[in-house]
């Protein structure tokens, strides 16, 4: 097992109180697997990824649980050991990658930076690697000396992907990798990510609010709501047999261009405030099937079908 997250809790200290952005999530990821993490904005999916990378802002901290990555607990690793792992073994493609590049530095130099830091090679070797990476992600290798503004949005996203792959990581976190891009460019980037994942045997966690993007790229899927994973299974399992009312709502909210022409359903209400999360099941104020028990007790994540987990009082466990 490459990555095992156990009961991870990441909180933020704010003036109004402690914000429980991620409140006890667990999942496993094998080598070469792609997992999707879906949910509305503010559900804690980006915080979960930043916790794995230990890139939390100053007021954020890991309050509990463990992140077992290749035999070490990332929740406890600090200092030089953490720096050695970051970007060499785990890298991240940031949301809005087009703005994540340094505008006054040539893209080639930006990518050689992590290579020179992590490996004992000289600049010429590193630059040669960058050219190979450019080829891999579909950019003309002669463009290494250009500046970010000379690239279009889609090309900049490719540069970001090349940068994430610079030190041959085992795990790449992709935070909304295609959100700011056009459909055609989105299709190009998704195809590239999928090819890279298979070619390099990469493990990937793709974070998106767009279930249809995840449906196209991931083997495993976890649906997050208000800091918790409410459903987890294979992508096909989640789509063909959704168990949690929230998952059902999310799937129904997508217009399907191949299907019947009808207005998709919406989920009424807003996600809860995570400083004062509602008692019981966090989805209960918005749930169409909510009963008294949902307000009183929090449902555990139980196995409904082999490998298919859901956290709802009204799903039947396997036994």
């Amino acid at each position, binding site marked *: 097992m490459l990555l095992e997250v156990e009961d991870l809790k990441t909180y933020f200290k704010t003036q109004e109180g402690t914000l429980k952005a991620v409140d006890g999530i667990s999942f496993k990821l094998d080598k070469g697997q792609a997992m999707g993490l879906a949910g509305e904005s503010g559900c804690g999916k980006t915080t979960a990824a930043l916790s794995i990378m230990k890139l939390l802002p100053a007021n954020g901290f890991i309050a509990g649980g463990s992140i077992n990555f290749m035999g070490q607990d990332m929740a406890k690793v600090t200092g030089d050991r953490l720096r050695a792992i970051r970007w060499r073994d785990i890298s991240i493609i940031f949301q809005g990658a087009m703005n994540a590049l340094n505008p006054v530095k040539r893209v080639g130099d930006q990518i050689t930076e992590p290579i020179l830091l992590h490996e004992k090679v000289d600049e010429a070797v590193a630059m040669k690697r960058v050219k190979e990476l450019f080829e891999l992600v579909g950019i003309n290798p002669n463009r290494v000396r250009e500046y970010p503004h000379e690239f279009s949005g889609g090309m900049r996203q490719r540069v970001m992907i090349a940068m994430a792959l610079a030190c041959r990581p085992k795990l790449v976190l992709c935070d909304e990798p295609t959100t700011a891009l056009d*459909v055609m460019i989105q299709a190009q980037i998704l195809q590239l990510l999928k090819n890279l994942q298979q070619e390099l045997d990469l493990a990937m966690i793709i974070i998106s609010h767009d279930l249809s993007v995840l449906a196209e790229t991931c083997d495993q899927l976890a649906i997050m709501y208000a800091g918790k994973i409410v459903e987890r299974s294979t992508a096909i399992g989640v789509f063909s047999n959704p168990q949690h009312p929230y998952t059902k*709502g999310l799937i129904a909210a997508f217009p399907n*261009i191949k299907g019947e022409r009808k207005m998709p359903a919406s*989920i009424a209400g807003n996600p809860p405030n995570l400083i004062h999360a509602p008692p019981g099941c966090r989805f209960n104020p918005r749930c169409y099937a909510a009963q008294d028990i949902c307000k009183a007790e929090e449902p555990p994540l139980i196995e409904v079908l082999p490998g298919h987990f859901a956290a709802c009082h009204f799903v039947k466990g396997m036994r």
Partner: protein
Amino acid sequence: MAKDIIKVKNLEVWFSVRRGFVESLTSKVQLYVKAVDGITFDIKEREIFCLVGESGCGKTTTGKAILRLVEPTGGSVKYGGGGLTPAMMKDAAMRTVSKKFLSKAEAEADLAANRVDVRRISKDKMKMLRQRMQMIFQDPYESLNPKQSIYDIVAEPLVVNSLGKNEADRERRVIKALEDAGLRPPKDFMWRYPHEVSGGQRQRVGIAGALVLEPQFLVADEPVSMLDVSIRSEILKLMLDLRDNKGLTYLFITHDLGVAYVFSDRIGIMYLGKIVELGPTEEVIKGPRHPYTKALISVVPKPDPRMKTDKIILKGERPDPAHIPPGCRFHPRCPSAMEICSQKEPEPMYVSQEHWVSCWLEAGEAKK
């Protein structure tokens, strides 16, 4: 048959490329970014007309040019909805005739049909006309002033247009607009600030700001693309309700074919400043004729991993609109380009009564 509320004919918006001093001395040809390069369509009363295309194809510029938020450089935009005063009509007609943009007969035809040319109307009349034509912006996070209360944001169009007899009348109108936009009860929202409400509610504030002037025609520029999927259809349903109850007409601008499919009546596919295919939504989505439309439809992600479809992924990105390729502007990326495509620009060809496409594949003589 419903009347046309908007008639756009050969609309052009060109931006001149700025040149340096030396460059202008060496008398190089002036380059233009042809953001909108001659498009023609009309929108019927109570219709939702959708423009779809990649970013930079000119769809937002088209919307803005119709409201004259950017000045068109050619063609005409005619508005035939309600709210026109006789003075306005006359002013527009006189100016078009005196400036020889239109013959007298054509101007009289416009007058008879209760239509004005938005491009030829004077600035102060345009301000009045714009009360009937409003815009909803894309980003509810950026388009609302964070230092104004929701009341002030929604009341601002009234103040700018000096409407409303007094403060009480204005308040009444603001309350009505908030209620129409689904912010109920309005008193709960009026004195809050944009950061205190959710994204969906923020977009409703934007809609209320447009509704407060009681418009007939709305340009909605990607109104849901910044919102979470779970609340998108709420906003779309609100817009549909407004059409049904208030008789609004929409120009809906989006890059999301899925949303366009469920929401619009007719759809126009734009590529590099031109509409390449236009027709009833169901017909275009289920039976696309232009290779670009086909490719766009094929790459829309399907919300179901069991549905594997063949994708037509176009290579490269759209060309620079300052250097539009000759012939059909799509030919360098077209998977089925022929010789003629790089030489001659195809004219619109009707494939059914209301569905046309600009592609040489549809022309009988081009098929060998």
